[in-house]
């Protein structure tokens, strides 16, 4: 795993908080492991909002798109007109984190089979890249940005990131492919930290959402949802 590029270390220790209010986080609750993500956030002291309609994005600093079936979630995004509100949420400064199906929905391009995606993260991704359920597996991978110990990794019919754009940082890799990536205020993992006891990725996301909020404070209008 020596192939992981150098990255800037993010200090996860609670320092002097720039703002006393915790970030407001939503979990896209159309289908999948949204309740498990909410449970991890609860352990970190955050009560997440379940997002099923665009209106629920209002006022959020960050949104998690959970694991599940990307083809099912995509139907909802298309038929219930969530594409534009999610794109606007990102444009207006919202932080995003996608796990597995969530990573697929955020990607620039999706293969195996090809399907539409939000294009908010400059990666190309293969659905079910390891194969069917019998190929689901666990492991652990180093992640310099989060420090020791290695990140536990649960892959359930996981996707494989086959290409990353120049703006994408690879924060952890597994079996030679990026497994945890970041582009600006967008994070994605091809595995499921919500199925483990390790809360570091969620804490990292909260910090990202919090920082993003500081930099976009006052910029956000109340009209992003049209």
């Amino acid at each position, binding site marked *: 795993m020596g192939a992981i590029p150098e990255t800037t270390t993010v200090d996860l220790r609670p320092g002097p908080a720039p703002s006393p209010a915790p970030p407001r986080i939503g979990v896209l609750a159309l289908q999948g*492991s949204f309740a498990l993500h909410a449970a991890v956030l609860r352990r970190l002291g955050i009560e997440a909002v379940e997002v099923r309609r665009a209106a629920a994005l209002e006022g959020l600093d960050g949104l998690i798109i959970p694991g599940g079936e990307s083809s099912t979630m995509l139907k909802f995004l298309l038929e219930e007109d969530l594409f534009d509100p999610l794109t606007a949420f990102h444009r207006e400064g919202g932080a995003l984190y996608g796990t597995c199906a969530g990573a697929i929905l955020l990607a620039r391009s999706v293969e*195996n089979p090809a399907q539409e995606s939000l294009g908010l993260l400059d990666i190309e991704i293969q659905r079910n890249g390891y194969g069917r359920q019998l190929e689901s597996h666990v492991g652990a991978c180093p992640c310099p940005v989060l420090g020791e110990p290695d990140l536990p990794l649960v892959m359930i019919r996981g996707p494989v990131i086959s290409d990353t754009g120049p703006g994408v940082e690879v924060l952890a890799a597994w079996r030679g492919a990026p497994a945890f990536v970041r582009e600006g205020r967008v994070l994605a993992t091809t595995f499921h930290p919500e199925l483990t006891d390790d809360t570091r990725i969620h804490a990292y996301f909260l910090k990202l959402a919090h920082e993003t909020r500081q930099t976009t404070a006052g910029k956000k209008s109340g009209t992003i949802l049209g």
Partner: protein
Amino acid sequence: MSTDFRLKTGLADMLKGGAIMDVTNAEQARIAEDAGAVSVMALERVPADIRRDGGVARMSSPEKIREIIASVSIPVMAKVRIGHFVEAQILQEMGVDFVDESEVLTPADEENHIDKHAFEVPFVCGCRNLGEALRRIGEGAALIRTKGEAGSGNIVEAVRHLRRIGNELRRLTILTDDELMSAAKELRAPYEIVRMVARDGRLPVPNFAAGGVATPADAALCMQLGAESVFVGSGIFKSTDPEQRAKAIVKAVTHYRDPAMLVEVSMGLGEPMRGLDIATMPEEELLQTRGN
């Protein structure tokens, strides 16, 4: 919990908040996937036809299963007869993602269920009460569903089973530690699992609903009663407009607490499957009493 078991329940976790649809061929599987199903269940005949035709109902043919696997990108489940571990070996070998050891098919063993720990592929099993659920979990099931009354188009039995499981779960949580062995004896369930459930107040695996779902309202009812996803058997392909009904049930599962959305999705669906009055059915025609 072993690593392997986390992978098994993990797939069930990813299917939460979704609809899993019975299909008998590739064309139906594609209709289900296009409607937004999170998974399809391959079987030879839908339960309503099994009920009508009689005879022995078995695992679907390998050709059909292969055809269904090749036609969709979502996980594929398939049913085996209760106790028929060789049918399960065949499905695992074919790469099926989840095996349903199902009372809808004719049981192969009237005493024993499959030792599901022996398999890499995860299993789902039906139950009518908490004891039955915990016995199946003890045998290695990674997902529990209500039995309901398959092929009846009548939600009454699924409701009965969901309510009973919820009620029995809540009762366990108020018992003292020294009362749990007696509770395990009454439930006829493994003591260690009874203790875990009493401590957590919930099953150690996801809990879905099945058996008799015919309308979007039926699906939302199961969700509001605590089911985490819904299996739809005959309800889709025995209705007059399977495409629209499948879509509507998918949406009803997601928006199960949103009455305005339930109104919207319940319109323009044509006729649901014709239902059966379970109270007037002879005992020997019930599928839910198979396996225990």
